[in-house]
């Protein structure tokens, strides 16, 4: 079985995003970029499936400009076998990404597609579900466990009330939540090896997809700032303030 992993290049999760002075967007100039944390978990899951003998090939796909090659190479260093980049301007909308990925899935025919549940920049949490819809395949979102047996996959999902397990006919789409696994780090020899692994670049035209969006970003503002309050010196003072000043208890 082949596993396809889709990944996104995003702002490093330790960096606090700042809004541009003209409020047109978030300022990403000279900001450290990285693999989206949920995508790292998706890569790890796919690589583990290969190590367990369940998968025989792991293909990693990313959508964006040449700078995304860096993240694809990281994925290859983590154990993916080959990479595909769909060449677009940075940050196309989720629907366009899902349409592009759907075309790649049709060409590659993987048994399982694994994606992060959400990118930490747009915080949309959509692409995996949209991909599943376009392919008319079942989805197991927010996965904390994935178990494959023959032509079915059981996915345990992190839901608001606890955990839910569903069984999906394969091919299926899985999106990862935080507790699915703990991603490994790439070793130096593997980073060197990754440089020689194949990375193909294809265009939306070749896939027959027009990248566009009916959503326009009008402006971006910083959130209302919270002022740091006061330090209290004791539990007594805290209780007194909560009772008489904030009046919340």
């Amino acid at each position, binding site marked *: 079985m082949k596993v396809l992993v889709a990944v996104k290049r995003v*702002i490093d999760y330790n960096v*606090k*995003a*700042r809004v541009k002075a003209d409020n047109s967007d*978030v300022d990403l100039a000279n900001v450290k970029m990285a693999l989206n944390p*949920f995508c790292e978990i998706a890569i790890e899951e796919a690589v583990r499936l290969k190590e367990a003998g369940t998968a025989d090939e792991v293909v990693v796909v990313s959508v964006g400009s040449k700078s995304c090659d860096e993240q694809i190479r990281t994925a290859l260093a983590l154990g993916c076998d080959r990479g595909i980049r769909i060449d677009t301007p940075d940050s196309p*909308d*989720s*629907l366009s990404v*899902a349409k592009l990925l759907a075309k790649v899935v049709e060409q590659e025919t993987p048994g399982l597609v694994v994606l992060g*549940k959400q990118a*930490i*920049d*747009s*915080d949309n*949490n*959509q692409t*995996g*579900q*949209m991909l599943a*819809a*376009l392919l008319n395949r*079942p*989805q197991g*979102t*927010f996965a904390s466990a994935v178990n494959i047996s023959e032509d079915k996959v*059981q996915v345990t999902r*992190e*839901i*608001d*009330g*606890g*955990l*839910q*397990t*569903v*069984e999906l006919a394969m091919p299926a789409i899985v999106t990862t*939540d*935080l*507790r699915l696994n703990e991603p490994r780090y790439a070793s130096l020899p593997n980073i060197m090896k990754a440089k020689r692994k194949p990375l193909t670049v294809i265009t939306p035209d070749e896939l027959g997809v027009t990248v566009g969006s*009916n*959503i*326009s970003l*009008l402006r*971006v*503002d910083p959130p209302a700032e*919270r002022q*740091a*309050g*006061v*330090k*209290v010196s004791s*539990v007594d003072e*805290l*209780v007194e*303030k*909560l009772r008489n000043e*904030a009046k*919340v*208890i």
Partner: protein
Amino acid sequence: MTILVIAEHDNAQLKPVTLNTLSAAEAIGGDIHLLVAGHNCQVVADEAARVTAVSKVLLADNTAYEHQLAENISALIVSIAANYSHILASSTTTAKNYLPRVAALLDVNQISDISAVVSADTFERPIYAGNAVATVQSSDKVKVITVRGTAFDAVVADGNSAEIAVVAEACDAGVSCFISEELAVSDRPELTAASVVVSGGRGMGNGENFDLLYSVADKLGAAVGASRAAVDAGFVPNDMQVGQTGKMVAPELYIAVGISGAIQHLAGMKDSKVIVAINKDEEAPIFQVADYGLVADLFDAVPELEQKI
């Protein structure tokens, strides 16, 4: 202009967050229909019909909808979507699962997790873990939207008697099935709806120590939450996680205990009215958003707090 809102429920009760989503629909303006899709859920439809703001309840009662499987629910919504200018659901794990599927099937984008309605086609939504707020405009023929419940006041749950219409469509894609569920059982209020939340982080040390927080919570009628670090460490289950990718809370009072305050955690709680932080590290970033900070060992401070409230 008619708006379709999808009810959040468990086949027995309408979840309160639906009332917040209805309030967002009111802000858009127009007739509002509320879809109750489930199994043996007539009682939910009856409850829904009493909610103000709803002009019609649509009841789709079928085994295919019992567990809100995305493949089936999305097909149902798409089958009735032609009548609507907007389709809204709450930003819960249930709707986050099925609604993007609806959007893709309708060939439109989804606007996720809106925090304000500017006009019928323009909305605000937090991005980058809440470190920026985007104003976005959609020219899609139908606007598919998830709503951040804590950003909207609830509509009144009583006093209406809307018509209930039955949707007979039985959409069963036949590619997925429900196996099991492990739901947290608690007498405490639901995290996203509680007026007081007490949360613990890595500083709690282990799961047993969360008992300290449960004691305080029970005195305050509070819900108990956790940071990602505490969930990852296995102290408490995932349904307690507050943060960018967990639950968004905005209670009257949020008490953060042993939580350093990573930006991902702040994203989930910084809209709380009053924030209290108890942490022994006075440099912890949580103090930068706290109204009241207490630099102390939580194992001394929390039992004392429980005594004195």
